[in-house]
Structure formats: structure tokens, C-alpha cells
């Protein structure tokens, strides 16, 4: 473990902090991130100032060899925050790591001034500082990767939720309004969700509305037919509504056989059929005054 006393980094960061900070901010603003204008200059300044403060504190209290200790918690948390926010903003892992790596030059400059003619001391110090900043840069990358994975997972869940809304129109009648492009995976999830709801609610009719679906390919058409067949095996009937002329043409062109399936142009028409199927009739009520 490198005794803190042997390194002049703590004093350096203490005494020359504002100078190092200025140079560092300049380097970042001149770099690719700023050129893209994706982060406001003020944010770069604030993040850098905060990080340098945390670094000074950690270097002053803890060991230079390992980042694991309690003294480095502040630095780790700070880096993790910046890494996560850069990741959300759409930067790459290396672009994010540049935040740390661009600190090297200003620090090395300050070290050179500090050590003057003491070449051996300078080389030693530069080596230690370099190793430290490398570790910090790599840590940034690790956090970055993790947060990307978390984003993807969360988006997947949200997508699944959005794409499987099964609504109850009336006792025994469910509707599944499908929106957006259907792909094989999504259609399967939707199919399972609909069948599950049919069982849970004891629905006799399920209306699958595809008004919001721009195109249907063979795979999706097959999935729809499988869903309808499975629902039938469970004892429920399905009606497809909202087939637009283009989709009707595609279906015929693909040779998909929908003769066994009830199809209606609108959800309203389908609902009317469903009501009849469950033995219900809609009558005008008494007038309200």
C-alpha cells in the first residue's frame, strides 16, 4: 500500500485544484462531447468541479492503490451518477470514460511543475496517478454497461405492458386492441396474455381489434389464427375487427384462410355480434329529465 505521505498528489490537488480544474474543463469542452453539444457547458463544469473535490477528499484520506475503501465511496458514487446519466443521454462507453481520462493531462502538467528537476520522482508519481485514473475510467465503463442493461430490461417490460392491454367490454366479452407493428415475439406474449384473461374472467367472446396495426405478414397472421384456435379449444370464440382494406388484400394474397373466423370491419360491429353471442340485447333506457 502506498503511504499517502509518499505521494504528493494530495497536496497537488489541494494547492492546484482550481488550475487543474480549469485545464480539465477546457479539455473536455474542446473534446468530441462538447462539439456535439449534447451536454450543456454548465453541466460539464459542475460535474468536473464536484468530481475533483471528491477526488481530492479521497486521495487525502485513503490509499492510492485501491479504490475499494470507504474514503473512495464518494468518488465511486459520483462516477456512477455521471456514468448513468451519460448513458441515458446516449453516449458510448468510451465517450463516458473520457470524462476521467481527460483529467490525466492537466494532472500530469501540474505534477511536472511540482517536481521540477526531480525526474525520478516525477516518473514515479505519474505512474501511480496514471494507474489510479485508469482504474477510475474503467469503473466508469463498468457502471455504464450495467445501466445500459437495466435500461434495456426496463424498456422490454414497458413494451410488453403496453402491448398486452386486454379490456373487458362487458361480462363475458373481452377486447384486445392491438397497436403498432406486430412481431413474432410480441404476438406470442399477447396470445398468452389473452388466453390467460379468458380463463380468469370466464369470457365467452374475445374481440381482437387490429385497427392500429399497419401491416400483417404471414407469421403474424398465423399467430392470430393460432390464438383463435387455442381460444376455441378453451371454449371461447374470437372475432377479428378493424381489418383495413390493405390488410385484407395482404391476407388474401398470402393465402391465409380466415373462413372459419368471424371478421368485422369495426370494433363496434364486433361488439354487437358479441352481445348477441352471449345472449344480451341493448335497449333504450327511460328518458332522463
Amino acid at each position, binding site marked *: 500500500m502506498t503511504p499517502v505521505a509518499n505521494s504528493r498528489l494530495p497536496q497537488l490537488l489541494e494547492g492546484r485544484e482550481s488550475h487543474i480544474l480549469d485545464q480539465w474543463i477546457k479539455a473536455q469542452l474542446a473534446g468530441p462531447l462538447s462539439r456535439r453539444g449534447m451536454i450543456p457547458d454548465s453541466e460539464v463544469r459542475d460535474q468536473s468541479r464536484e468530481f475533483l473535490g471528491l477526488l481530492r477528499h479521497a486521495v487525502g484520506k485513503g490509499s492510492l492503490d485501491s479504490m475499494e475503501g470507504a474514503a473512495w465511496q464518494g468518488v465511486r458514487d459520483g462516477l456512477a451518477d455521471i456514468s448513468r446519466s451519460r448513458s441515458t443521454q446516449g453516449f458510448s462507453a468510451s465517450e463516458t470514460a473520457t470524462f476521467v481520462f481527460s483529467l490525466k493531462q492537466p494532472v500530469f502538467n501540474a505534477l511536472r511543475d511540482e517536481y521540477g528537476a526531480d525526474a525520478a520522482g516525477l516518473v514515479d508519481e505519474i505512474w501511480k496517478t496514471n494507474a489510479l485514473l485508469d482504474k477510475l475510467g474503467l469503473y466508469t465503463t463498468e457502471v455504464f454497461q450495467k445501466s445500459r442493461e437495466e435500461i434495456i430490461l426496463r424498456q422490454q417490460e414497458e413494451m410488453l405492458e403496453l402491448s398486452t392491454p386486454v379490456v373487458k367490454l362487458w361480462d363475458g366479452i373481452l377486447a384486445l386492441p392491438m397497436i403498432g407493428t406486430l412481431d413474432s415475439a410480441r404476438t406470442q406474449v399477447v*396470445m*398468452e396474455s389473452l*388466453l*390467460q384473461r*379468458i*380463463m380468469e374472467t*370466464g*369470457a*365467452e367472446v374475445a374481440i381482437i381489434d387490429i385497427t392500429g396495426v399497419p401491416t400483417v405478414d404471414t407469421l403474424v397472421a398465423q399467430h392470430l389464427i*393460432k390464438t383463435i*384456435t*387455442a*381460444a*376455441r*379449444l*378453451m*371454449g*371461447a370464440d374470437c372475432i377479428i375487427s378493424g381489418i383495413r382494406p390493405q390488410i385484407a388484400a395482404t391476407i388474401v394474397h398470402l393465402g391465409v384462410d380466415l373462413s372459419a373466423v368471424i371478421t368485422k370491419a369495426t370494433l363496434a360491429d364486433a361488439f354487437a355480434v358479441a352481445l348477441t353471442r352471449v345472449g344480451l340485447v341493448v335497449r333504450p333506457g327511460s328518458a332522463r329529465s
Partner: protein
Amino acid sequence: MERIPILKMGELLLVSIQVDMHDQLALTLQDDLTTRIADTGAHGVLIDISTVEVVDSFIGRMIANIAAMAGVLDARTVLVGMQPAVAITLVELGLTLPGVRTALNVERGMALLQAEVRALAPDRRPGEGDGDAGR
């Protein structure tokens, strides 16, 4: 020998499959049901698979056979309670059981059968039977 019990409820026969059937048990059920339909003159058969977790092509064929043979003996068959996972798997297997009527549960299945039996013979009064578990 192990058998699946068949309940008589008026004009209907009710079978509730609650075990993971091995092939022989399934074949025995097929035979037993056919015999029972002929013996009792039942006009409806209700097969409850609401607790069945796996239906493979053998069981699927058994169900289709029962429906076909019952039909020949002038009885209607309704299959009730298929679980979603089973339905999805059967469709993927390519087994669609055409010609087998289905309903969500025993209650609906019985209502369906009784309506059909009534339609076939208006002067006969179904469901008025003893409802006991005769064998």
C-alpha cells in the same frame, strides 16, 4: 384395475380427468365411456380437463375418438376447462380437435349440452334425473 370414474347426471355423463393418465388408463376410459353411453342411452358426455396439465397427441386422439364414438351412439360431447398452456401447446402440435365442442367450465358445458339435448327432443325432459353418482 385403476379406472377413471364416470358420473351419471340425468341424461348426461360426466368425466373429470384428474390424474396424469398413462396410455392404458386412457384406452380403458375410452372403452368404459362408450359402453356406458350405450348402456344408459345418455345423450351428452362432458369431459372435464380443468386440472389436466398436459395433453399430448395420444390423449388428444382419445378425446377425438370419444367424441366420434359418442356421436355414433347419438350423444353429444363437450370438452371443458382446457388450460391456456395446454391450448397453446395443442395448437402448436397441430391438434385442433375439430368436431369436438368446447366450453370454459363444467357449468357452461352442461348448459350447452342441455340446450342441445332439448333442441333434439323437446318432449324429453333432461336434467330432471336423480343426479346421483351412479355407476
